[in-house]
Protein backbone atom coordinates (compact mmCIF):
# COMPACT_ATOMS: atom_id res chain seq x y z
CA UNK A 1 0.00 0.00 0.00
CA UNK A 2 1.40 3.40 -0.96
CA UNK A 3 2.00 6.12 1.57
CA UNK A 4 0.00 9.20 0.67
CA UNK A 5 1.85 12.45 0.98
CA UNK A 6 -1.21 14.54 1.61
CA UNK A 7 -4.00 13.01 3.64
CA UNK A 8 -7.03 15.29 3.79
CA UNK A 9 -9.43 13.13 5.80
CA UNK A 10 -9.71 13.28 9.61
CA UNK A 11 -7.00 11.30 11.42
CA UNK A 12 -8.06 9.29 14.52
CA UNK A 13 -7.32 11.24 17.70
CA UNK A 14 -5.71 9.19 20.45
CA UNK A 15 -6.88 9.63 24.03
CA UNK A 16 -6.76 7.79 27.36
CA UNK A 17 -9.62 5.48 26.38
CA UNK A 18 -8.56 4.46 22.90
CA UNK A 19 -4.73 4.80 22.71
CA UNK A 20 -3.87 1.07 22.71
CA UNK A 21 -6.30 0.47 19.83
CA UNK A 22 -4.79 3.17 17.63
CA UNK A 23 -1.20 2.37 18.65
CA UNK A 24 -1.82 -1.24 17.57
CA UNK A 25 -3.43 -0.03 14.34
CA UNK A 26 -0.27 1.92 13.53
CA UNK A 27 1.60 -1.43 13.78
CA UNK A 28 -1.05 -3.11 11.56
CA UNK A 29 -2.44 -5.11 14.47
CA UNK A 30 -5.82 -5.23 16.20
CA UNK A 31 -6.10 -4.85 19.96
CA UNK A 32 -9.45 -5.00 21.68
CA UNK A 33 -10.55 -4.48 25.25
CA UNK A 34 -11.70 -7.32 27.46
CA UNK A 35 -13.45 -7.33 30.85
CA UNK A 36 -11.75 -9.46 33.48
CA UNK A 37 -14.93 -9.74 35.54
CA UNK A 38 -17.69 -10.68 33.07
CA UNK A 39 -15.23 -11.86 30.37
CA UNK A 40 -16.92 -9.83 27.59
CA UNK A 41 -14.97 -8.34 24.71
CA UNK A 42 -15.69 -4.62 24.33
CA UNK A 43 -15.70 -2.29 21.39
CA UNK A 44 -15.42 0.64 21.08
CA UNK A 45 -13.10 0.69 24.10
CA UNK A 46 -13.85 2.78 27.16
CA UNK A 47 -12.90 3.50 30.76
CA UNK A 48 -14.91 0.52 32.10
CA UNK A 49 -16.99 -2.44 30.97
CA UNK A 50 -20.34 -1.30 29.51
CA UNK A 51 -21.91 -4.68 30.32
CA UNK A 52 -21.11 -4.91 34.05
CA UNK A 53 -19.49 -1.59 34.99
CA UNK A 54 -16.24 -3.22 36.08
CA UNK A 55 -13.12 -1.09 35.83
CA UNK A 56 -11.01 -4.26 35.46
CA UNK A 57 -10.57 -3.96 31.70
CA UNK A 58 -7.44 -4.97 29.83
CA UNK A 59 -6.26 -5.16 26.23
CA UNK A 60 -5.78 -8.27 24.13
CA UNK A 61 -3.75 -8.38 20.94
CA UNK A 62 -5.54 -10.27 18.17
CA UNK A 63 -2.71 -9.96 15.65
CA UNK A 64 -2.97 -9.05 11.97
CA UNK A 65 -5.08 -11.82 10.47
CA UNK A 66 -8.57 -10.59 11.24
CA UNK A 67 -11.55 -12.24 9.56
CA UNK A 68 -15.04 -10.88 10.02
CA UNK A 69 -18.59 -10.97 8.66
CA UNK A 70 -20.38 -7.85 7.46
CA UNK A 71 -23.29 -6.93 9.76
CA UNK A 72 -24.51 -3.72 8.10
CA UNK A 73 -23.49 -0.81 5.89
CA UNK A 74 -24.43 2.53 4.41
CA UNK A 75 -23.39 3.81 1.01
CA UNK A 76 -22.70 7.50 1.27
CA UNK A 77 -23.15 9.54 -1.91
CA UNK A 78 -22.34 12.89 -0.32
CA UNK A 79 -19.24 13.92 1.58
CA UNK A 80 -20.09 15.03 5.10
CA UNK A 81 -16.45 15.56 6.07
CA UNK A 82 -13.40 16.99 4.30
CA UNK A 83 -11.39 14.59 2.13
CA UNK A 84 -14.24 12.31 1.19
CA UNK A 85 -15.37 14.28 -1.88
CA UNK A 86 -12.78 12.49 -4.05
CA UNK A 87 -13.81 8.90 -3.39
CA UNK A 88 -17.59 8.89 -3.50
CA UNK A 89 -19.54 6.76 -3.09
CA UNK A 90 -18.03 5.80 0.25
CA UNK A 91 -19.06 2.52 1.84
CA UNK A 92 -19.17 2.59 5.64
CA UNK A 93 -19.58 -0.94 6.93
CA UNK A 94 -19.80 -2.68 10.29
CA UNK A 95 -18.42 -6.20 10.60
CA UNK A 96 -18.41 -8.69 13.50
CA UNK A 97 -15.17 -10.54 14.20
CA UNK A 98 -15.55 -14.24 13.31
CA UNK A 99 -13.73 -15.30 16.51
CA UNK A 100 -15.37 -12.73 18.79
CA UNK A 101 -18.77 -11.76 17.34
CA UNK A 102 -19.43 -9.32 20.20
CA UNK A 103 -16.77 -7.10 18.67
CA UNK A 104 -18.29 -5.16 15.79
CA UNK A 105 -16.04 -2.63 14.10
CA UNK A 106 -17.06 0.16 11.74
CA UNK A 107 -14.68 0.90 8.84
CA UNK A 108 -14.86 1.77 5.19
CA UNK A 109 -15.26 -1.21 2.93
CA UNK A 110 -12.50 -0.90 0.30
CA UNK A 111 -12.04 -2.71 -3.01
CA UNK A 112 -15.76 -3.37 -3.32
CA UNK A 113 -18.39 -1.93 -5.66
CA UNK A 114 -21.55 -0.58 -4.00
CA UNK A 115 -23.71 -3.12 -5.87
CA UNK A 116 -21.63 -6.01 -4.48
CA UNK A 117 -22.01 -5.17 -0.76
CA UNK A 118 -24.10 -7.68 1.16
CA UNK A 119 -24.84 -8.28 4.82
CA UNK A 120 -23.21 -11.59 5.73
CA UNK A 121 -20.35 -11.28 3.25
CA UNK A 122 -16.90 -12.33 4.53
CA UNK A 123 -14.39 -9.51 4.96
CA UNK A 124 -10.89 -9.14 6.34
CA UNK A 125 -9.07 -6.31 8.01
CA UNK A 126 -6.50 -4.35 6.06
CA UNK A 127 -4.53 -1.32 7.24
CA UNK A 128 -4.38 1.83 5.17
CA UNK A 129 -1.19 3.84 5.77
CA UNK A 130 -2.49 7.38 5.98
CA UNK A 131 0.68 9.20 7.15
CA UNK A 132 4.21 8.03 7.85
CA UNK A 133 3.26 7.20 11.44
CA UNK A 134 -0.42 6.41 11.27
CA UNK A 135 -2.51 3.59 9.83
CA UNK A 136 -6.28 3.16 9.63
CA UNK A 137 -7.98 -0.24 9.98
CA UNK A 138 -10.28 -0.94 7.01
CA UNK A 139 -12.34 -3.82 5.68
CA UNK A 140 -11.92 -5.44 2.28
CA UNK A 141 -13.70 -8.46 0.80
CA UNK A 142 -11.91 -11.70 1.73
CA UNK A 143 -9.62 -12.89 -1.07
Amino acid at each position, binding site marked *: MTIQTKYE*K*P*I*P*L*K*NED*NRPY*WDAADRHELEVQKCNDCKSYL*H*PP*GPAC*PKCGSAAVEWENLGSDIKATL*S*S*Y*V*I*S*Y*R*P*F*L*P*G*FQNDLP*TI*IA*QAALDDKPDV*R*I*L*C*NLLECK*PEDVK*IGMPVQMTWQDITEERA*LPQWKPTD
Partner: protein
Amino acid sequence: MDKISNKYAVVGVGEYERSRKSGTTPLQMALVAARNALQDAGLEASDIDGIMNYSTGGDSCTSHEVATYLGARPKYVKDISGGGSSTEMLIGDAIGMIDAGLLNTVLIYRSMNGASGQLVGRGYDPNMLQNALPGGSFIIPYGSASPSQWFGIFATRHMHQTGLTKEHLGQVCIDFYEHAQRNPKAHLNGKTLTMEEYLNTPDISSPFNIHDCCLELDEANAIIVTSADRAKDCKSRPVYIMGITPRETHPHAHYWSDLDQVAADHVAPALYQSAGVKPEDIQVAAIYDCFSWVVLRQLEAYGLAPRGEVGDFVAAGNLKMGGKLPTNTAGGMLAEGYTHGMNNVLEIVRQLRHEYKGSDRQVEDCEIGICTGWSGPDLAGAMILGN
Protein backbone atom coordinates in the same frame (compact mmCIF):
# COMPACT_ATOMS: atom_id res chain seq x y z
CA MET B 1 -51.53 3.77 36.22
CA ASP B 2 -48.98 6.25 37.32
CA LYS B 3 -49.64 8.74 40.12
CA ILE B 4 -49.38 11.66 37.65
CA SER B 5 -51.80 10.14 35.17
CA ASN B 6 -54.39 12.65 33.89
CA LYS B 7 -53.36 15.20 36.55
CA TYR B 8 -51.54 17.43 34.04
CA ALA B 9 -52.55 18.89 30.71
CA VAL B 10 -51.34 20.76 27.67
CA VAL B 11 -53.49 23.89 27.59
CA GLY B 12 -51.81 26.00 24.95
CA VAL B 13 -49.93 25.52 21.69
CA GLY B 14 -48.57 28.04 19.23
CA GLU B 15 -46.06 28.44 16.44
CA TYR B 16 -44.24 30.88 14.20
CA GLU B 17 -44.67 30.60 10.43
CA ARG B 18 -42.33 28.05 8.82
CA SER B 19 -39.95 29.14 6.10
CA ARG B 20 -36.46 28.71 4.67
CA LYS B 21 -35.63 32.30 5.52
CA SER B 22 -37.32 33.86 8.50
CA GLY B 23 -35.39 37.11 8.23
CA THR B 24 -35.57 37.38 12.00
CA THR B 25 -34.01 36.01 15.18
CA PRO B 26 -34.90 32.88 17.17
CA LEU B 27 -35.90 35.26 20.01
CA GLN B 28 -38.46 37.07 17.84
CA MET B 29 -39.86 33.76 16.60
CA ALA B 30 -39.99 32.26 20.11
CA LEU B 31 -41.94 35.30 21.39
CA VAL B 32 -44.54 35.00 18.63
CA ALA B 33 -44.94 31.25 19.24
CA ALA B 34 -45.21 31.86 23.00
CA ARG B 35 -47.80 34.66 22.60
CA ASN B 36 -49.83 32.40 20.30
CA ALA B 37 -49.72 29.60 22.89
CA LEU B 38 -50.80 32.04 25.64
CA GLN B 39 -53.67 33.30 23.50
CA ASP B 40 -54.68 29.73 22.69
CA ALA B 41 -54.81 28.92 26.41
CA GLY B 42 -56.44 32.23 27.36
CA LEU B 43 -53.60 32.96 29.77
CA GLU B 44 -51.53 36.07 30.50
CA ALA B 45 -47.73 36.12 30.51
CA SER B 46 -47.90 36.73 34.26
CA ASP B 47 -49.53 33.29 34.67
CA ILE B 48 -46.32 31.61 33.49
CA ASP B 49 -43.92 30.81 36.32
CA GLY B 50 -41.58 28.40 34.54
CA ILE B 51 -39.96 28.58 31.10
CA MET B 52 -37.88 25.83 29.50
CA ASN B 53 -36.22 25.42 26.12
CA TYR B 54 -33.80 23.23 24.24
CA SER B 55 -31.28 24.09 21.60
CA THR B 56 -28.56 22.45 19.57
CA GLY B 57 -25.19 24.13 19.65
CA GLY B 58 -26.61 27.49 20.73
CA ASP B 59 -29.04 27.87 17.81
CA SER B 60 -31.83 29.31 19.97
CA CYS B 61 -32.41 32.08 22.54
CA THR B 62 -32.53 31.72 26.33
CA SER B 63 -35.62 31.24 28.46
CA HIS B 64 -34.61 34.30 30.45
CA GLU B 65 -34.67 36.44 27.29
CA VAL B 66 -38.09 35.06 26.35
CA ALA B 67 -39.37 35.76 29.88
CA THR B 68 -38.09 39.33 29.74
CA TYR B 69 -39.64 40.25 26.42
CA LEU B 70 -42.84 38.35 27.09
CA GLY B 71 -43.29 40.43 30.22
CA ALA B 72 -43.32 37.32 32.41
CA ARG B 73 -41.52 37.10 35.73
CA PRO B 74 -40.94 33.34 36.12
CA LYS B 75 -39.54 31.66 39.23
CA TYR B 76 -37.65 29.19 37.12
CA VAL B 77 -35.89 29.08 33.75
CA LYS B 78 -34.06 26.17 32.16
CA ASP B 79 -32.14 25.89 28.90
CA ILE B 80 -30.83 22.49 27.88
CA SER B 81 -28.79 21.22 25.00
CA GLY B 82 -30.97 18.72 23.23
CA GLY B 83 -32.83 17.58 20.16
CA GLY B 84 -35.18 14.68 19.61
CA SER B 85 -37.05 13.54 22.73
CA SER B 86 -36.23 16.82 24.53
CA THR B 87 -39.85 17.98 24.18
CA GLU B 88 -41.04 14.92 26.11
CA MET B 89 -38.22 15.29 28.62
CA LEU B 90 -39.01 18.94 29.39
CA ILE B 91 -42.74 18.18 29.69
CA GLY B 92 -41.77 15.45 32.18
CA ASP B 93 -39.59 17.92 34.08
CA ALA B 94 -42.41 20.49 34.13
CA ILE B 95 -44.88 17.92 35.48
CA GLY B 96 -42.39 16.93 38.18
CA MET B 97 -41.91 20.51 39.30
CA ILE B 98 -45.64 21.28 39.25
CA ASP B 99 -46.30 18.05 41.17
CA ALA B 100 -43.72 19.06 43.76
CA GLY B 101 -45.52 22.38 44.22
CA LEU B 102 -42.58 24.38 42.91
CA LEU B 103 -44.34 25.71 39.80
CA ASN B 104 -47.87 26.20 38.48
CA THR B 105 -47.76 26.75 34.73
CA VAL B 106 -44.79 26.12 32.44
CA LEU B 107 -44.03 27.39 28.93
CA ILE B 108 -41.80 25.14 26.80
CA TYR B 109 -40.50 26.29 23.43
CA ARG B 110 -38.14 25.38 20.59
CA SER B 111 -37.00 28.12 18.21
CA MET B 112 -34.39 27.83 15.49
CA ASN B 113 -33.32 29.24 12.16
CA GLY B 114 -32.69 25.70 10.98
CA ALA B 115 -32.45 26.67 7.29
CA SER B 116 -31.08 30.22 7.15
CA GLY B 117 -29.02 30.12 10.33
CA GLN B 118 -26.86 27.51 11.95
CA LEU B 119 -27.45 24.10 10.36
CA VAL B 120 -27.53 20.89 12.35
CA GLY B 121 -24.62 18.61 11.50
CA ARG B 122 -22.85 20.87 9.03
CA GLY B 123 -19.79 23.03 9.15
CA TYR B 124 -18.27 21.51 12.28
CA ASP B 125 -14.54 20.94 12.68
CA PRO B 126 -13.87 17.17 12.30
CA ASN B 127 -11.51 17.07 15.29
CA MET B 128 -14.10 18.81 17.47
CA LEU B 129 -16.60 16.14 16.35
CA GLN B 130 -14.19 13.32 17.19
CA ASN B 131 -13.97 14.62 20.74
CA ALA B 132 -17.63 15.58 21.09
CA LEU B 133 -19.25 12.37 19.83
CA PRO B 134 -19.09 9.20 21.93
CA GLY B 135 -16.58 6.92 20.21
CA GLY B 136 -15.90 9.75 17.76
CA SER B 137 -12.47 8.46 16.71
CA PHE B 138 -14.12 5.22 15.54
CA ILE B 139 -16.52 6.90 13.10
CA ILE B 140 -15.24 10.34 12.04
CA PRO B 141 -12.07 9.07 10.27
CA TYR B 142 -14.39 6.90 8.16
CA GLY B 143 -16.44 9.84 6.90
CA SER B 144 -19.38 9.06 9.15
CA ALA B 145 -20.60 12.34 10.61
CA SER B 146 -24.20 12.67 9.44
CA PRO B 147 -27.30 11.21 11.12
CA SER B 148 -28.38 10.08 7.63
CA GLN B 149 -25.33 7.78 7.58
CA TRP B 150 -25.70 6.55 11.16
CA PHE B 151 -29.40 5.79 10.80
CA GLY B 152 -28.73 4.35 7.33
CA ILE B 153 -26.54 1.67 8.91
CA PHE B 154 -29.34 0.80 11.36
CA ALA B 155 -31.93 0.88 8.56
CA THR B 156 -29.93 -1.42 6.26
CA ARG B 157 -29.67 -4.03 9.00
CA HIS B 158 -33.32 -3.72 10.03
CA MET B 159 -34.40 -4.08 6.39
CA HIS B 160 -32.19 -7.17 6.02
CA GLN B 161 -33.66 -8.74 9.16
CA THR B 162 -37.33 -8.00 8.55
CA GLY B 163 -37.71 -7.81 4.77
CA LEU B 164 -38.58 -4.11 4.81
CA THR B 165 -38.13 -2.62 1.35
CA LYS B 166 -37.34 0.75 -0.14
CA GLU B 167 -41.03 0.93 -1.16
CA HIS B 168 -42.00 0.71 2.51
CA LEU B 169 -39.79 3.70 3.32
CA GLY B 170 -41.31 5.48 0.34
CA GLN B 171 -44.84 4.76 1.55
CA VAL B 172 -44.09 6.65 4.80
CA CYS B 173 -42.90 9.68 2.79
CA ILE B 174 -45.85 9.55 0.40
CA ASP B 175 -48.40 9.32 3.24
CA PHE B 176 -46.87 12.25 5.14
CA TYR B 177 -46.59 14.38 1.98
CA GLU B 178 -50.27 13.60 1.37
CA HIS B 179 -51.15 14.79 4.89
CA ALA B 180 -49.22 18.01 4.25
CA GLN B 181 -51.59 18.76 1.35
CA ARG B 182 -54.40 19.07 3.90
CA ASN B 183 -52.37 21.44 6.09
CA PRO B 184 -51.94 24.99 4.75
CA LYS B 185 -49.18 25.61 7.34
CA ALA B 186 -47.07 22.64 6.12
CA HIS B 187 -43.92 23.71 4.33
CA LEU B 188 -44.49 21.11 1.60
CA ASN B 189 -48.13 22.03 1.10
CA GLY B 190 -48.46 22.07 -2.68
CA LYS B 191 -45.79 19.43 -3.26
CA THR B 192 -47.04 15.88 -3.74
CA LEU B 193 -44.95 12.73 -4.09
CA THR B 194 -45.60 9.54 -6.07
CA MET B 195 -43.89 6.18 -5.59
CA GLU B 196 -42.35 6.51 -9.04
CA GLU B 197 -40.84 9.90 -8.22
CA TYR B 198 -39.65 8.59 -4.87
CA LEU B 199 -37.95 5.52 -6.37
CA ASN B 200 -36.33 7.61 -9.11
CA THR B 201 -34.70 10.01 -6.63
CA PRO B 202 -31.01 9.19 -6.08
CA ASP B 203 -29.86 8.25 -2.58
CA ILE B 204 -27.91 10.59 -0.30
CA SER B 205 -27.01 7.91 2.27
CA SER B 206 -28.49 4.54 1.36
CA PRO B 207 -31.30 3.68 1.82
CA PHE B 208 -32.26 7.35 2.19
CA ASN B 209 -32.89 9.92 -0.52
CA ILE B 210 -33.92 13.54 0.04
CA HIS B 211 -37.57 12.58 0.65
CA ASP B 212 -36.59 10.27 3.52
CA CYS B 213 -34.93 13.20 5.36
CA CYS B 214 -36.73 15.80 7.47
CA LEU B 215 -37.01 19.44 6.45
CA GLU B 216 -34.60 21.89 7.99
CA LEU B 217 -36.55 25.11 8.42
CA ASP B 218 -36.76 28.36 10.32
CA GLU B 219 -39.55 28.02 12.86
CA ALA B 220 -40.62 28.13 16.48
CA ASN B 221 -43.12 26.11 18.52
CA ALA B 222 -44.44 26.60 22.05
CA ILE B 223 -46.44 24.49 24.52
CA ILE B 224 -48.01 25.39 27.87
CA VAL B 225 -48.36 22.70 30.55
CA THR B 226 -50.31 23.07 33.78
CA SER B 227 -52.29 21.01 36.29
CA ALA B 228 -55.70 19.52 35.42
CA ASP B 229 -57.25 21.79 38.07
CA ARG B 230 -55.87 24.98 36.54
CA ALA B 231 -56.63 23.69 33.05
CA LYS B 232 -60.35 24.02 33.86
CA ASP B 233 -59.94 27.79 33.96
CA CYS B 234 -58.25 27.95 30.57
CA LYS B 235 -59.99 28.92 27.35
CA SER B 236 -58.83 25.84 25.46
CA ARG B 237 -60.03 22.25 25.71
CA PRO B 238 -57.36 20.58 27.85
CA VAL B 239 -55.45 17.60 26.49
CA TYR B 240 -54.43 15.39 29.42
CA ILE B 241 -51.13 13.58 29.80
CA MET B 242 -52.28 10.02 30.42
CA GLY B 243 -48.77 8.64 30.70
CA ILE B 244 -45.22 9.67 29.96
CA THR B 245 -41.76 8.16 29.81
CA PRO B 246 -39.77 11.35 29.45
CA ARG B 247 -36.48 9.81 28.41
CA GLU B 248 -34.83 6.41 28.18
CA THR B 249 -31.37 5.48 27.00
CA HIS B 250 -29.76 2.82 24.87
CA PRO B 251 -27.63 0.56 27.10
CA HIS B 252 -24.40 1.65 25.43
CA ALA B 253 -23.13 5.19 24.86
CA HIS B 254 -21.55 3.95 21.60
CA TYR B 255 -24.98 2.97 20.39
CA TRP B 256 -23.70 1.82 17.00
CA SER B 257 -22.00 -1.08 18.81
CA ASP B 258 -25.39 -2.85 18.74
CA LEU B 259 -27.52 -2.11 15.69
CA ASP B 260 -30.34 -4.42 16.78
CA GLN B 261 -31.76 -2.29 19.58
CA VAL B 262 -32.77 1.34 19.95
CA ALA B 263 -33.71 3.37 23.03
CA ALA B 264 -37.37 3.37 21.94
CA ASP B 265 -37.46 -0.38 22.66
CA HIS B 266 -37.00 0.46 26.34
CA VAL B 267 -39.65 3.22 26.48
CA ALA B 268 -42.80 1.31 25.57
CA PRO B 269 -43.43 -0.96 28.61
CA ALA B 270 -43.24 1.86 31.18
CA LEU B 271 -45.18 4.20 28.91
CA TYR B 272 -48.20 1.93 28.48
CA GLN B 273 -48.16 1.02 32.15
CA SER B 274 -48.15 4.67 33.20
CA ALA B 275 -51.03 5.50 30.85
CA GLY B 276 -53.08 2.39 31.64
CA VAL B 277 -53.73 1.70 27.95
CA LYS B 278 -52.55 -0.76 25.31
CA PRO B 279 -51.09 -0.06 21.85
CA GLU B 280 -54.40 -1.04 20.24
CA ASP B 281 -56.15 1.77 22.15
CA ILE B 282 -54.13 4.43 20.29
CA GLN B 283 -56.19 6.22 17.62
CA VAL B 284 -53.81 8.85 16.29
CA ALA B 285 -50.01 9.00 16.32
CA ALA B 286 -47.18 11.47 16.04
CA ILE B 287 -44.05 9.41 15.48
CA TYR B 288 -40.71 11.22 15.44
CA ASP B 289 -39.69 11.30 11.79
CA CYS B 290 -36.27 12.80 11.27
CA PHE B 291 -35.95 10.01 8.67
CA SER B 292 -38.66 7.81 7.17
CA TRP B 293 -37.10 4.62 8.55
CA VAL B 294 -37.18 5.77 12.18
CA VAL B 295 -40.99 5.79 11.93
CA LEU B 296 -41.01 2.11 10.94
CA ARG B 297 -38.59 1.09 13.67
CA GLN B 298 -40.59 3.00 16.31
CA LEU B 299 -43.94 1.55 15.20
CA GLU B 300 -42.38 -1.81 16.11
CA ALA B 301 -40.79 -0.56 19.33
CA TYR B 302 -44.11 0.86 20.59
CA GLY B 303 -46.07 -2.25 19.61
CA LEU B 304 -48.12 -0.27 17.09
CA ALA B 305 -47.20 -2.77 14.34
CA PRO B 306 -45.95 -6.33 14.80
CA ARG B 307 -42.16 -6.73 14.68
CA GLY B 308 -41.18 -7.94 11.25
CA GLU B 309 -44.52 -6.98 9.73
CA VAL B 310 -44.34 -3.20 9.88
CA GLY B 311 -43.75 -3.07 6.11
CA ASP B 312 -47.06 -4.81 5.42
CA PHE B 313 -48.74 -2.57 8.00
CA VAL B 314 -47.59 0.56 6.21
CA ALA B 315 -48.19 -0.80 2.70
CA ALA B 316 -51.82 -1.48 3.69
CA GLY B 317 -52.33 2.26 4.12
CA ASN B 318 -52.65 2.22 7.90
CA LEU B 319 -50.72 5.48 8.40
CA LYS B 320 -53.06 7.45 6.12
CA MET B 321 -56.05 9.51 7.17
CA GLY B 322 -58.83 6.95 7.45
CA GLY B 323 -56.31 4.15 8.10
CA LYS B 324 -55.98 2.12 11.27
CA LEU B 325 -53.42 4.51 12.80
CA PRO B 326 -53.36 7.94 11.12
CA THR B 327 -49.80 9.12 11.72
CA ASN B 328 -48.14 12.54 11.46
CA THR B 329 -51.40 13.98 10.22
CA ALA B 330 -49.98 17.48 9.70
CA GLY B 331 -47.22 16.12 7.45
CA GLY B 332 -44.68 15.44 10.20
CA MET B 333 -41.09 16.54 10.06
CA LEU B 334 -40.76 15.08 6.58
CA ALA B 335 -43.36 17.46 5.13
CA GLU B 336 -44.69 19.98 7.67
CA GLY B 337 -41.69 21.31 9.56
CA TYR B 338 -38.92 20.34 11.93
CA THR B 339 -38.32 21.56 15.44
CA HIS B 340 -36.90 18.32 16.79
CA GLY B 341 -40.34 16.90 17.47
CA MET B 342 -42.29 19.77 18.99
CA ASN B 343 -44.43 20.41 15.90
CA ASN B 344 -45.62 16.79 16.11
CA VAL B 345 -46.82 17.40 19.69
CA LEU B 346 -48.78 20.48 18.57
CA GLU B 347 -50.58 18.39 15.99
CA ILE B 348 -51.57 15.60 18.42
CA VAL B 349 -52.97 18.23 20.80
CA ARG B 350 -55.03 19.78 18.00
CA GLN B 351 -56.29 16.38 16.82
CA LEU B 352 -57.39 15.39 20.34
CA ARG B 353 -59.19 18.73 20.76
CA HIS B 354 -61.05 17.94 17.52
CA GLU B 355 -59.90 21.33 16.33
CA TYR B 356 -60.28 20.34 12.67
CA LYS B 357 -63.79 18.95 13.07
CA GLY B 358 -65.70 19.13 9.81
CA SER B 359 -62.57 19.11 7.64
CA ASP B 360 -60.62 16.32 5.94
CA ARG B 361 -57.79 16.82 8.45
CA GLN B 362 -59.65 15.56 11.50
CA VAL B 363 -59.11 11.98 12.67
CA GLU B 364 -62.73 11.34 13.54
CA ASP B 365 -63.63 10.94 17.22
CA CYS B 366 -60.03 10.33 18.28
CA GLU B 367 -59.60 10.32 22.04
CA ILE B 368 -56.18 8.78 22.66
CA GLY B 369 -52.95 9.66 20.86
CA ILE B 370 -49.26 8.87 21.17
CA CYS B 371 -46.35 11.21 20.63
CA THR B 372 -42.81 9.88 20.42
CA GLY B 373 -39.40 11.52 20.54
CA TRP B 374 -36.22 10.01 19.15
CA SER B 375 -32.76 11.41 19.57
CA GLY B 376 -31.14 8.76 17.49
CA PRO B 377 -30.88 5.16 18.65
CA ASP B 378 -29.41 6.41 21.94
CA LEU B 379 -32.21 8.45 23.57
CA ALA B 380 -35.99 8.27 23.31
CA GLY B 381 -39.08 9.53 25.13
CA ALA B 382 -42.81 9.31 24.55
CA MET B 383 -46.18 10.27 25.98
CA ILE B 384 -49.77 9.21 25.60
CA LEU B 385 -52.34 11.99 25.52
CA GLY B 386 -56.11 11.92 25.94
CA ASN B 387 -58.91 14.43 25.66
